């Protein structure tokens, strides 16, 4: 039998990166399950899960449930309730996504260069599907100074490159001021 070994999506990309008042590090590997309610099953699913996130919502039950799109949420963590497949289509996405956390006093200033949204107005916690530069992005606002940034695993290098560049630029601006 073939033994596969786990590897970090950001391997070789020199994380953590620290420039000025921003720090980028990878999020530790976590089980991610995509949950898409079957037609007419959203209420039954919500009672089995302890809730189902509305657009932009993050719910903390025994798992973290994050809205990720129309009729779809991600569950972060182990321990989905039994029998959930009666109410929803489930698929394991754990190794399809790469997550990095950007935190620090300048985290919002860095993201302002890459994400065409006002992140100050978002609640804590909340989730957003948007773009980072040209990359598809799932952004989870953890606090006013910490953002989890998820993209497709194949794009981990582009994600860290874009952020590295923006972090350097913001730090250089601060040094001039």
């Amino acid at each position, binding site marked *: 039998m073939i033994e596969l070994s786990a590897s970090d999506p950001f391997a070789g990309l020199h994380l953590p990166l620290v420039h000025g008042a921003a720090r980028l590090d990878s999020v530790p590997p976590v089980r991610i399950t995509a949950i898409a309610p079957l037609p007419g099953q959203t209420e039954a699913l919500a009672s089995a899960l302890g809730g189902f996130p509305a*657009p*932009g919502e993050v719910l903390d039950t025994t798992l973290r449930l994050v809205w990720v*799109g*129309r009729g*779809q949420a991600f569950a972060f963590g182990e321990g989905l309730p039994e029998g959930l497949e009666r109410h929803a289509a489930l698929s394991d996405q754990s190794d399809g996504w790469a997550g990095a956390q950007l935190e620090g006093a300048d985290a919002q200033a860095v993201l302002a260069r890459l994400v*065409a*949204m006002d992140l100050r107005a978002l609640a804590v916690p909340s989730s*957003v*599907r*948007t*773009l980072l530069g040209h990359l*598809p*992005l799932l952004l989870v606002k953890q606090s006013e100074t910490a953002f989890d940034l998820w993209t497709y695993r194949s794009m981990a290098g582009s994600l860290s490159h874009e952020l590295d560049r923006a972090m350097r630029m913001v730090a250089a601006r601060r040094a001039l001021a």
Partner: protein
Amino acid sequence: MYLPCPCCGWRDMREFTCIGAADYCDRPEADAPPEAWDNYLHLRDNPAGPARDLWYHAPCGTWLEVARDTVTHAVTGSTAVEEAG
């Protein structure tokens, strides 16, 4: 330019793809006469004033009909195609 996604609120245009006039939502029945299919595929009004366009918001996966005015360029609202039926 910003467009209102029924799911996500006002978002930058680069997140959207324009498909064309909202006529694409009114697909003829399979046994409709050739004229109906010709109309569906090729013939479009060119209104000066209120118009409805079909857009796709890729980040959240919503198809939406956007109401805009071709004279003033004002975007006045949108509805999710799924909810419009």
